[in-house]
């Protein structure tokens, strides 16, 4: 019975508090708050867009992005605080509560906050830009967006991969298209009977004949040593980054065609079996026959 009376008192007090609050807010305040909210936010958005567009044009898309975030979020916060102030909320306790709430939320959403902060680092540090091709772990693709929480990339088989910003800050990221030129390393093995000098000249001729292989930096011919079945070389040639795959395919094809024309053998793995002495013939026994070797 006492409990019911207590509940009724609490409800009455709350109702009185609300009605007192509502009567204390006058109509002009409500209008001003509405104007602040419904004009302020679109205005902040428009100004942000305008400045971000200027920063994008003057500097880069990345700078535009960071400028837009730096301007828009504080502007919205300022508008909300002004609206609350206009509605008669005492901001000191609100701020206090916000502080406590912030700590609580901070503990609860450490990962999200970490991603947001990492996002700012990514934008400021610019390890890659929107449109770049990056490699993170075993994922390679083109950067579509750098968002508050994550970077979205499109893989070459057309899948979208979302990578949290924190992961990118912590991981090794390779920006494949950062520089305008790239080197392709083609591994080649030739038979032991071949003359390495002739192989080198043939490879250089193939590279020179392809106008998309850069004349400088000059292609490299590296002797990797004696393999199990072949003399192993690396032929490293340079091409424009945007033609990398095309040139690598052309070069590999041209090398095979030219080796065939020149009679240079690309051996498949050889396996030699010995029993006993290496110089003696391999003993063969024909079962069911008359002869034995």
């Amino acid at each position, binding site marked *: 019975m006492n409990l019911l009376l207590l509940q009724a008192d609490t409800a009455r007090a709350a109702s009185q508090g609300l009605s007192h609050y509502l009567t204390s807010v006058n109509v002009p305040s409500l209008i001003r708050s509405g104007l602040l909210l419904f004009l302020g936010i679109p205005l902040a958005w428009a100004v942000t867009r305008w400045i971000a567009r200027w920063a994008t044009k003057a500097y880069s898309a990345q700078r535009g992005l960071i400028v837009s975030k730096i301007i828009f979020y504080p502007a919205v916060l300022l508008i909300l605080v002004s609206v609350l102030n206009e509605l008669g909320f005492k901001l000191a306790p609100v701020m206090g509560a916000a502080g406590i709430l912030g700590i609580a939320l901070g503990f609860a959403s450490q990962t999200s906050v970490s991603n947001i902060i990492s996002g700012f680092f990514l934008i400021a540090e610019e390890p890659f830009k929107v449109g770049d091709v990056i490699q993170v772990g075993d994922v390679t693709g083109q950067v579509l967006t750098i968002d508050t929480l994550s970077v979205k990339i499109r893989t070459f088989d057309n899948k979208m991969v979302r990578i949290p910003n924190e992961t990118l800050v912590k991981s090794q990221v390779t920006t494949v298209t950062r*520089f*305008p*030129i790239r080197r392709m390393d083609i591994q080649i093995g030739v038979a032991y009977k071949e003359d390495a000098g002739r192989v080198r000249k043939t490879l250089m001729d193939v590279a*020179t004949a*392809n*106008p*998309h*292989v*850069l*004349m*400088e*930096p*000059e292609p*490299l011919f*590296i002797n990797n040593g004696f393999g199990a079945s072949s003399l192993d070389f690396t032929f*490293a040639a*340079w*091409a*424009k980054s945007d033609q990398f795959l095309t040139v690598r395919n052309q070069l590999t094809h041209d090398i095979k065609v030219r080796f065939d024309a020149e009679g240079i053998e690309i051996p498949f793995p050889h396996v030699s079996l010995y029993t006993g002495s290496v110089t003696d013939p391999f003993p063969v026994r024909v079962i069911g026959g008359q002869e034995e070797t």
Partner: protein
Amino acid sequence: MSAKIAQPDTLWGDRPTPASGETLRLDVGPLTLWLKGLENEVWLGFQRAEETVVPSGDTPPEDLEWSRWALGDAPHHLRFRPVLPDRLLVVKPDHPLTLLRRAKARVYVRVPAWVRVEAVEGEKTKGATLMEIPTEVLSDTWWGDFLTGELGYWLTTKARRELSDDLFEPHRIMSALHLINRSEDDLHVEKLALRVEHLSTYEKEGRLWAEETNVVYLGEAEGSDIRMRDRPPVEAEGAHEISPARAQVKGLRARTFDRLRALSGW
């Protein structure tokens, strides 16, 4: 470019668009252009002698790759301009040239022209570019270090000191370079960067010339002052401009000379 009707023996100049059903063949150096008219369309295909077997007659090969443009209702004609390549040229003399301190040299480099095909409407002077086709394909190359370098084309040259009639070909633009070593060191020219995108093209008596260029070497640290003289070389006095430079710059300071050095690393 003043409206100049192309002479039968040269590609450069203005020509009427081919009539519907008409096919034309135009040759310049190793490049063969095929033109075809169809209704209000212009079809354009090309072949290079160095890449394929070009048929001898006036019938284009069956497998020719065509590009086509629909023109507006007003009558058009086609303009063929020789233009210089769109990136810098890294020019490597067959034999390196050394300029002692305070020495000067005038060398001639022949640059394969690109054919710019424009569709010009009526009496207008400016046309719409349909296509640019290199008469010879030059290899790509890189000039400078890995961080601040730039892409260019590779050209080997004899870097001749004298001119003769047989050097002039309809598809090559003669570039006269005045090299001046104003540094206190000898200048050993293994390669030089010719910034052809800043040069205009001139014509006189069927010969093509690039804008006169002075290159003043100031030292390893200072680089070179490059001055485009905005006029044809003295050897082509009175030549008229037929193609303006792609990028109008009257002078710039840049690294022009290079000694041989390892760039590749490992």
